């Protein structure tokens, strides 16, 4: 299950949360800013202990209602992006308001306080994630991807892509070819140096 923590917005906060969960003997599956996923469920007693402990560090364990709000925001955004259709502009703020029934301001401020990044930035990051997938798994070019995901232009996509990953989309096209090479030889490629030369830094 996933626990959401308000003001868990830096690396040190992450370490503290990890440490406290380990003390409670709750195995962690994944941590990200603002959230930690644990393997098992947390008992009400453990939850209270954790909440009190985190408070002493200024962090706030979110109750179920607000946790599920953040979760819904994330899921809805990813859902909207994954089901984007060409030439249909997604209005995220409108869609979120309708779906969740909260004011857009409340949604974005709660989100930023928990995640440590703005809602807008989260949307861009998710779009870039989707763009990576489309480049790697589907045969789409950057022009089509940019219009599908609602970037202003192909250049805008490339710019944002570079801003988030430090790489150009074409780097991912090269990766795709190399991955295909890996699948083709399927295990027989024992020399890791094969295909190494073409990578561009």
């Amino acid at each position, binding site marked *: 299950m996933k626990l959401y923590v308000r003001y868990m917005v830096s690396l040190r906060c992450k370490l503290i949360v990890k440490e406290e969960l380990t003390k409670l003997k709750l195995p962690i*599956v994944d941590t990200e800013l603002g959230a930690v996923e644990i393997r098992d469920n947390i008992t009400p007693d453990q939850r209270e202990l954790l909440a009190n402990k985190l*408070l002493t560090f200024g962090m706030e364990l979110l109750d179920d209602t607000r946790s599920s709000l953040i979760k819904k925001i994330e899921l809805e955004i990813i859902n909207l992006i994954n089901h984007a259709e060409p030439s249909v502009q997604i209005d995220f703020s409108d869609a979120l308001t309708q779906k969740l029934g909260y004011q857009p301001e409340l949604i974005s401020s709660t989100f*930023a306080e928990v995640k440590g*990044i*703005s809602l807008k930035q989260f949307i861009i990051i998710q779009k870039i994630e989707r763009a*990576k*997938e489309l480049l*790697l798994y589907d045969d789409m070019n950057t022009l089509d991807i940019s219009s599908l995901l609602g970037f202003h232009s192909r250049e805008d996509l490339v710019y944002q892509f570079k801003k988030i990953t430090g790489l150009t989309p074409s780097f991912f096209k090269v990766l795709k070819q190399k991955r295909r090479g*890996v699948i083709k030889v399927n295990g027989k490629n024992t020399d890791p140096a094969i295909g190494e030369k073409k990578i561009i830094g």
Partner: protein
Amino acid sequence: MKLYIKYMVSQRCKMVVRDTLQKLGINDAIVDLGVVDIQESINQKQHDLFKEALLASGLELLDDNKSILVEKIKNIITEMIHYDDESPKVNYSDFISEKLGYDYTYLSNVFTGVKGITIQQYIILNKIEKVKELILYDELNLTEISYKLNYSSVSHLSNQFKKITGLSPSYYKQLKQKRQGNLENL
């Protein structure tokens, strides 16, 4: 134990790896881009099965040498940014390649193939994390922070902060006050 995986650079790759692990009966694992941290140790047979299953999805389990190299690059960066009081005045790229004794281009190729972001970008992300920490926990102002982390100016720092988080550093200052509010209500 940590296993590094090449070409595991998107969320879908993460899901593929998680599924693969579950099929092998390995549940205690933290899956991140380019790396899996398995809590229990796995035997050679599981290792080989895992490697084969990954290859079928176009992912490549890194041999030990390269895994260690990626790990070392990450450690140097973490140390450089999070623990050293004085960050090196030389180029980060020179610093890293000097420490590891490899050509920077080679290091960058290995790193990027695994993580899906450049070393440069990884350094920026870490620096921003550090800035967040310094704002939240230490009583440094932005001028001091920008000096400490080798930014040419406060506006350079603010720009990069905004580029990565979408928020301004002053928003983080507000967060700090809210957190302190939390502490006082205890």
